[in-house]
């Protein structure tokens, strides 16, 4: 019985010229955005790899110089793009993908003002994620608003139910018919996406196929929730027109109002300083220290060192006092950075939690969070890379400072050579695992699951109570 209903619904939809036009348009946009995203991601990854190699080459070929000069010369680290970033570029365009690692500073590319406004700015560019998150639900609305309301208006619902079919069978059959029609555009997109993953994955290994499979599951759950919602409203509404108006209203709230409101609300609940304020605070604390993190005093440090080695002059020390003091200063700076950046990242994390919780009002918020997470382009994975890059910077600075301290005496001119530069290992970045991503996104998974279950239950209830005429 369900098979017959689904087949008829599918045939009816596919023969409808309005669906064909809309599906062709959305399908074309999806394929183009996937293709364009893939080309861009591949190009960006190649450029990043080339830039990383160039930066390394510059580092290794900087000639003889004092290790501290080399520490100031620094090196760029580039955030690799994960294979799925072509589907959802997430916050990458606003956070940047490179950071200059140098002495004394944790550079601020992570704190660009654009990061505060990602939701608003991302509306402009059409990515595959945006097509999937906004346009496919709109197509589902066009497919579902009339499935019951339209039948009731035309009088076919009365005849249909007079055959003796159950309302649950009717609802399931219609949902499957709509799903079948949707598959006409989703299956080609999924094939193109999978091919792009298999053929052209240039990013670091981070379970791209497993991530892709979960990503597909997330979007399917999202679409299924919309199908359920469409059925429920169509069963409830007095007319097809009313159903359409209500569903378009839901779409506007979900796709346009909620994302903007979520950004504003999360920022209002957990405010972050402006980039200027943040830089000013950092500068002040680096200059004077704060309670509990005292700026090292050069004279006291020297005295301590002389006492430790039992000598009276710095020149008599078996180590270079300057190298050790530089490291002491570096560690002071690290504590200041940890305090300020840690607080900022934690605030972003709390904003993210508010954002995820607000998904109870709009499933798009949950899907967007999961989509960026699985594509490896969310704030958390940016933080993951930033932390790895900062750890690398600190190790590198320590190596430079200790080399200076251990291989020279205070007051000597000391120059290190290519052996030291080559001894600094390149940054090896391991992207987070799928388990890490999903573990961070449990709330979004739960909310999306609740939306799906709620939509199915609501559809079942409304179809059961639907008036025949």
């Amino acid at each position, binding site marked *: 019985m369900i098979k017959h209903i689904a087949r*008829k619904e599918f*045939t009816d939809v596919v023969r409808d010229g309005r669906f064909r036009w809309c599906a062709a348009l959305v399908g074309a946009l999806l394929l183009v955005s996937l293709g364009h995203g893939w080309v861009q991601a591949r190009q960006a990854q190649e450029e990043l790899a080339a830039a990383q190699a160039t930066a390394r080459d510059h580092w290794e070929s900087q000639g003889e110089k004092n290790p501290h000069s080399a520490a100031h010369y620094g090196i760029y680290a580039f955030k690799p793009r994960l294979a799925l970033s072509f589907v959802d570029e997430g916050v990458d365009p606003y956070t940047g993908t490179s950071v200059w690692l140098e002495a004394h500073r944790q550079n601020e590319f992570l704190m660009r003002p654009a990061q505060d406004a990602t939701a608003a700015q991302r509306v402009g560019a059409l990515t595959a994620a945006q097509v999937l998150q906004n346009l496919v639900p709109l197509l589902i609305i066009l497919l579902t608003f009339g499935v019951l309301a339209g039948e009731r208006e035309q009088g076919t619902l*009365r*005849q249909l139910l*007079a*055959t*003796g079919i159950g309302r649950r069978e009717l609802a399931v059959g219609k949902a499957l018919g709509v799903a079948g029609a949707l598959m006409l555009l989703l299956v080609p997109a999924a094939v193109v996406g999978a091919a792009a993953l298999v053929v052209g994955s240039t990013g670091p290994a981070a379970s791209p196929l497993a991530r892709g499979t979960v990503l597909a599951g997330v979007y399917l759950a999202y679409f299924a929730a919309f199908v359920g919602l469409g059925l429920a409203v169509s069963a409830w509404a007095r007319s097809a027109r009313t159903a359409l108006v209500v569903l378009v209203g839901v779409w506007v709230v979900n796709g346009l109002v909620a994302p903007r409101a979520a950004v504003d609300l999360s920022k209002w609940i957990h405010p972050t300083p402006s980039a200027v304020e943040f830089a000013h605070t950092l500068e002040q604390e680096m200059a004077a220290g704060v309670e509990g993190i005292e700026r090292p005093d050069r004279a006291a440090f020297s005295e301590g060192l002389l006492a430790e080695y039992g000598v009276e002059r710095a020149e008599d020390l078996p180590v270079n006092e300057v190298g050790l003091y530089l490291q002491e200063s570096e560690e002071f700076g690290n504590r200041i950075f940890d305090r300020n950046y840690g607080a900022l990242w934690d605030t972003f994390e709390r904003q993210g939690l508010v954002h995820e919780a607000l998904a109870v009002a709009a499933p798009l918020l949950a899907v967007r969070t999961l989509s960026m997470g699985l594509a490896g382009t969310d704030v958390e994975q940016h933080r993951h890379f930033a932390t790895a890059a900062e750890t690398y910077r600190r190790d590198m600075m320590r190596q430079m400072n200790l080399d200076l301290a251990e291989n020279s005496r205070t007051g000597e001119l000391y120059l290190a050579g290519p052996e030291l530069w080559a001894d600094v290992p390149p940054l090896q970045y391991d992207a987070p695992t799928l388990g890490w991503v999903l573990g961070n996104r449990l709330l979004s998974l739960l909310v999306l699951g609740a939306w799906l279950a709620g939509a199915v239950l609501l559809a079942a209830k409304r179809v059961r109570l639907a008036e025949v005429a």
Partner: protein
Amino acid sequence: MSEVLTMDAPSASDAAAPVPVLEARGLSKRYGDTEAVTGLDLRVGPSEIYCLLGPNGAGKTTTIHLFLGFLEPTAGSVHVMGLDVAAAPLESKRRLAYIPEQVMLYRNLSGLENLEYFAALGGTGSLAPERLTDILVGAGLPRDAVGQRVSEYSKGMRQKVGIAIAIAKEAGALLLDEPTSGLDPQASNEFSELLERLRDRGVAVLMATHDLFRAKESGTRVGIMRHGRLVNEMSTDEIGHADLERIYLEHMHE
């Protein structure tokens, strides 16, 4: 399902001692203060065509909808082949066919596809396209229209597809709600012939209609409804056309 069976299902051979295929017992339906149907007792046996006459708002369509389980009775009960419609809504619907005043079909499907769909849902199973075509042609649809999309059909053609749907279901009972409304005389005549063929196969027919002539010609019994009540019931063998019209008008002017 056996617990809701209150009597054996009838067959054409039971005509001598008819068991009601369709039965209403003390049936009432109220909408707020309005009594749409009040205390209706009605029995339609096999091979019987029962015509419900009455003006608009008399309760004819409400009665049909109560038999279909689209509405819940305020009091009383309705039974299809012994099944209480309230207790077994789906099973009872599978035992009857229904043709509304305006047969509405899926415009993007052909007449054949519509019939195939409704027949499958009605529990007939998958019938061969040739068999379905024969049913459509037998119901009066031109053979060359069978494969055309319904969006190109006239009202009469849609009505014939509706009849074909009812025939294909091979149900023991047929509910008709003003089925000839808007049909031209020839189509209306063909429809009456079809009804007679179904009656000869033992089908019980309950038809709500305004058409006194058609009721007298095709019906075996006639019931007159007014303000939700069955005010008269008679066999069409006992009266002539003029008598029926006179009796009907008398009730309308009471």
